[in-house]
Structures are given as C-alpha cells and as structure tokens.
C-alpha cells in the first residue's frame, strides 16, 4: 500500500506519464468490453445439459 501511495505521489511530478497511464487505463477498459462482447456467449437460452441417448 505504501509503495502504491509513493508511486502515485511520484506520478504527480510527471504529468505526461500520468496522462499516458490514464489513456492506457481507459483503452484497456474499452478493449476488454469489446472483446467480451465479441466472444461471449450472449444466448439467453436456459442451460441445457447434453446427455447421450
């Protein structure tokens, strides 16, 4: 926790890096959503257990 607080304080001294990390954060979030919707099984059908005859 302490290390994290120190890191955020250091970041305040580097506005460009702070900005880049913010961009990266938003980008990763959006890409995660995109990949989820592209690959997820969005079927609302009830679960069906396949058994042999």
């Amino acid at each position, binding site marked *: 926790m302490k290390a994290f607080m120190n890191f955020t304080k250091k970041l305040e001294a580097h506005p460009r890096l702070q*900005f880049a990390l*913010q*961009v990266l*954060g*938003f980008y990763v979030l959006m890409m995660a959503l995109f990949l989820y919707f592209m690959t997820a099984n969005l079927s*609302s*059908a*009830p679960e069906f257990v396949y058994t*042999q005859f």
Partner: protein
Amino acid sequence: MKRMKAFLTALVLFVATVLGCHFYIHHYRAKDCVSIPTAPSEEKGKLRTVLTEQMPEDGYPVFGSSEFQHGADTAYHPAHVFEQTDFHPMLIGAGYYQSLSHAVTLASIEESVKVRKAALILSPQWFRKTGVVDQAYASRFSETHYAAAIGNEALSDETKQYISDRTRKLLEVDEKTRARVLRYDEVYWKHEGDSFTEFRTDAWSSFLHEKELFETMLLEKSLERNCNSENALAAPLIRETSEAAPAAPDWDALYELAEQEGREQNQNPFFIDDTAYDRIEPHLPEKKGISSDADRGYQTGPEFDDLRCFLTVCQELGIEPMILVVPVNGYYYDHTGFPKEARAAYYAKVKGIAKEYGARIADFSDQEYTKYFFEDRVHLGKKGWLMVNESLYEFYKEA
C-alpha cells in the same frame, strides 16, 4: 478536464483498433483446408459465415447430429475417408440438432451450395414422442441462420409460417430470443415493422454479424492447425489416382480393415466398441425389457412434420435431398425389449415421407444386426460410417 482528454484520446485509439479489427476479420479468409468442412465441430453449425465461406465446391452439406462427434479419430469417419479424394462434404450438426434446425440452416446457407444436393442422416432417437427438446433447440438456435432463412425470398409463406410457429413454440423457454424472432419475422419476412423496429433489428443483426465474423476467424484459425499437423492415423485408403480418374476411397480395403478391427475391438454381445460396452455393462440389468411396451415407439410426434419441413425447404430451393435411414442397434434394442414391429413401422414411415417428396433414400434399416455397424448403443461405428460414406459419395457422383 485532463481525464476527459485522456478518455477522448483512449476513445480515438479504441475506435482505430476496432476499425482495424473490422477490416481484418472482413478480409480474413482461412487457407484452403479440407479439414474445416469435415471437422466435427459443435460451434461450426451455428456460425453462418463459416458454413457459407467454407462450403466446398466439390461437395454438399450433410446434416446430422451427434454421430459426427463419434469415431472422428478413426479411419472410417468422413473427415478421414474423404480427406484426399475428389469429394468433400460439409458436415453440419451435433447432438440435438434435428430436422427443424437443419431446415432453417439449409434455407440460410443455400446460396453457397453450388452442388445443389443435401443429405440428412436421420437418427431414430429424434422421433421420440416429444420431438426436439425445447431447451436443446433453444441452446442450438442461431439467430443469424433464422434471420437469413426467414428473409429467403425463395421460401413460400407457408413454409416460413411453419418454421416461425415451431420456433416460437420451442423458444417459449427463452423469451428474449423469442421476442427477437418475432421482430425478424416482422422486418425480414412480412416487411411490416415500423422504422424504429427496423432500425433496432438491423442494428442487432449487424452486431451479430460482426460478432460472428470474429468468432469465425477464431474457429477457422483453430481448425486450420489440423491442416498442418501430422495426422495420427495412417494415410487414408484411396484408389490409385490418375488425371482421368480422380482419387476415390478404396471401399474394399476399408471394409476389410473394419472387419479386421471389429474382430479385435468389438467382441461383446452387442458388437460395439469394447470401451463403449464396458461403460454400459453395469447398467444393462436395469435396461432389460425397459422399452417392451413401446408399441408406438418412434411413430408419433412433431419430428415427422419437421422432417416434412426440411424436405419442403429442399423442394422450394431446388435442392435434391438424400435421406439416410440409420437403423437402431438391433442387439441392444432387443435387450431393452423395444418391439421389432415398432422399429419396422418407424422405418416404413420415414421412407414413406421421403418417397412422398421424391427424395433419394439410403436405406440401412436392414443393418440392425450387422456386426461392427455401431460404435456404441446408437452412434455409427466402423461399418456404419463406411456404408454412410459410400452412399454420400455415390450421391455426389450421380449427375
């Protein structure tokens, strides 16, 4: 303000990435690989883009169910038998895919079928009184296939009405999809939707199409790996080739191999694979005579009308169908007491329907007691696959 700037910059990068992906998946084409059409993949049947893009020019769609996932690692499965020949079928199906979903799929992909033929491998177990199980149908339901089928101008209104009614009935277990099905009917078939309904249906369809292209790329990439990998099986048994006579499976050698392997691997009372027999053996006492009162077994239920629907779709689209009548495992069904008369009545009924529609029939109903025909209680095994493959090949070769 700074955060807003960061968000907007990320958004620009995101949009650029999505456009890049869009461009890539729209132009992505799997390399020419015969293992994709014959791969026993469950996901393939739902993805319209895989079926239309990969439909072989030297083959036709073969619809079936769980048998495709059985025997895939043997020399008798179509994926191996036809690997190096001049015929490559597109196998479509997995467990619980039945006549109705195949009718929808065929109506959806028909434009990509250059050889205007289709085969349907009928499993007797589809014809239980209930027909296709609603939850199974819902879990196998493909909206992209349905939307394309219902919008197919070549289908008559009566056929569309039957497909729509059955689908809505079976989707009562999935209200959200059912609501969208109603909108597909309204927009793509009846052209009655208001502009808002049209907009939301088109937007959802575009999203599904994009999603399907993405999933198609992932599936094709995974199946493509089989093209390069060394096949664990021996080289397929094919006849010597020349330019005048292209490669064909060597049926005699394959039957001889099946007989020999059957003598080694299928020595049990049902003549099925020993591993399958070992699995069911502990349950055999409780199965004895369990179906002895099934006098009307496999003779009633909605599956017969679904089969008629499949054949009607073929007729309306100008596709020549072949119905493969797969028998029950005579040894096992005798054990359960399932009456022989009921079995005979079932075969007669499906053959009668096929004849009614002028479909070609590959009749294996006299193979109930053929040794090594089945892998287990119900699925095709060594000789079963060979007989089915041989009729698929002959059907392809006929003008």
